[in-house]
């Protein structure tokens, strides 16, 4: 059903236009004086000298989480590649030398020119192996190929750049036989029973 919105009727004073113009000018001069007298009220950042504080939930360039032994946490399950709406993730899997882990990525490429930074890959990953919290939001390269990040580049980060108090943003626990994973879980939110339960199933 059509909804009829009555056109606003201008009063005589408004039709005169001049009064409204003066009202508008009073408003703008208020802003001008405020900007000069109280510069702290201007909602402007002196970028790039002053960097914005990104919320923890922001999405920027990806990184692949590392285990303590330096291997990638990714188990090449293709979940992210499947979830990606832009189809910009290309994974080639190979067999992992770790007996508990089936696969690992031989190559892991993300084409940042295609990526829409939706974060679905992060959501999809069952192992928390891929994250988008690097804070690097500006991508500048001089060739198209340079925008395709390979596995080495995605894993080229240092735990020192991430908040130490947020333990899961640091190096991922895990690795050969998951010793750190078990230790971390024991100290964390899981009960001893849980840990024993997953001790031989945990594969990430």
């Amino acid at each position, binding site marked *: 059903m059509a909804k009829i919105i009555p056109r606003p009727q201008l009063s005589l004073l408004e039709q005169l236009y001049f009064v409204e113009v003066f009202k508008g000018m009073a*408003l703008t001069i208020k802003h001008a004086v405020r900007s000069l007298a109280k510069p702290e009220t201007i909602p402007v950042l*002196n970028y790039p000298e002053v960097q914005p504080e990104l919320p923890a939930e922001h999405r920027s360039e990806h990184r692949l989480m590392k285990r303590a032994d330096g291997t990638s946490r990714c188990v090449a399950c293709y979940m992210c590649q499947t979830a990606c709406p832009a189809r910009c993730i290309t994974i080639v899997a190979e067999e992992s030398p770790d007996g508990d882990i089936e696969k690992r990525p031989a190559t892991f490429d993300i084409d940042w020119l295609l990526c829409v930074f939706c974060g679905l890959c992060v959501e999809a990953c069952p192992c928390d192996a891929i994250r988008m919290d690097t804070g690097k939001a500006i991508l500048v390269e001089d060739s198209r190929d340079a925008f395709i990040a390979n596995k080495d580049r995605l894993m080229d980060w240092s735990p020192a750049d991430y908040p130490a108090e947020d333990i899961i943003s640091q190096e991922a626990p895990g690795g050969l036989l998951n010793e750190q994973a078990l230790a971390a879980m024991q100290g964390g939110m899981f009960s001893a029973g849980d840990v024993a339960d997953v001790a031989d199933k945990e594969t990430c």
Partner: protein
Amino acid sequence: MEIILFIAKFGLAFIPLSCIAIMIFLERKGASIIQDRVGPNRAAIKIPGIGSVRGFGMIHNISDSVKLFFKEDFLPKHAHKWYYILAPMLPLMTAILTPALIPWFAPISLEGVEVSGAIINANSGLLMLFALGALSVYGVVIGSWASHNKYSLLGGMRASAMMISYEVSMGLSVVGLLLLIGSFNMTDIVEWQAANAWGVVVQPVGCLLFIVSMFAETGRTPFCVSEGESEIVGGFHTEYSSIRFALFFMGEYAHIVIASALIATLFFGGYHLPGLNTEVIHAHTAGVLAGLLAVKALMLALFCLMTTRQKKLYGALKASDKAVRLKEYSLFQIIFGGGALVAVLIAAVLMFIPMDGLLSELLTAAIQISIVMAKTMFFCWVFVWVRWTVPRFRYDHIMALGWKVMLNVALVNLVITAIVYKLLIETGVISG
């Protein structure tokens, strides 16, 4: 004496030119402060010993002009070469000529030589001003025609149609004032206002109409139909680049300065301030000068305060260039604060210098020039202020406003003025 006078008069031509630099700065910073932004402040020059100085965005003027000078001067193949080159010169040329007709100070006598405040103290002063102002539309029209480009032509057509329409109401809006004054001579007009009342008091409607027509004449928002990025690209200057493009804009800004000076002279008393007519200034030159310097010192102190606040603000931020910026802010604190002190000192010293004869004459003229300039700068700011307040009109609205409203109001205003004036004379309230 003659030669010194000649050089001094020649210097008046540079008033609009030097105001252009101020106007560009005013426009950009005015836009930014009205829109709650910081505005341009990235261009900087390195001064040895101090570091990089941004000067609140002043440096952008230099970098812009250098950029425009050294850009490729592009001449399209299809353009009419001669007119294409001629067009950008016209607006600036007329704008540089017009200050010759504006009275910058009351007539003074220097060692027996009578010097009028306007270089050309013609009896047809106002008519010549309007004629010169109307010439600037030729720059737009010729430029758009010579560009041989449909967008340019459309822009030029719209601009010329609008300017010609508003010229009618502009002329009619001052007729009421001229009726009262009875002279086209600009000095007479100011003197009449000094003796009776400012034009804005006796002719408020005429003043409003005149200011609005001036907005249209200069082609400024809300009447900026000659250019429109969304409809006709750049309008008349679509094909222009490099310094020719800059000339068009210098012409526009110079035109604003002239329009402001004209508004100030016709309706806001020119070099006259209430209570400060020529005799008073002449008799108390030192006192008035000290007063002006005190105002200046106050403004500098305010600037100093502003800089201090910004410095404090920046000091609290986590910025990578903090040391450099804080140094610059300190520099400006010293400049503004020191300037305020110097102004106060000069004002104090002035009290003890005897002022008479030639010195007093010259200083009176200087004070009056600064009064006119202050009023002019205020109206320049009004132009900027309105630009960032009022959205632009549609083309047909502009035409309807010009012909159906402004013209009629101006005519009615003229008739009422005439009747009231006649009645007042008849009843003996004022003498004719």
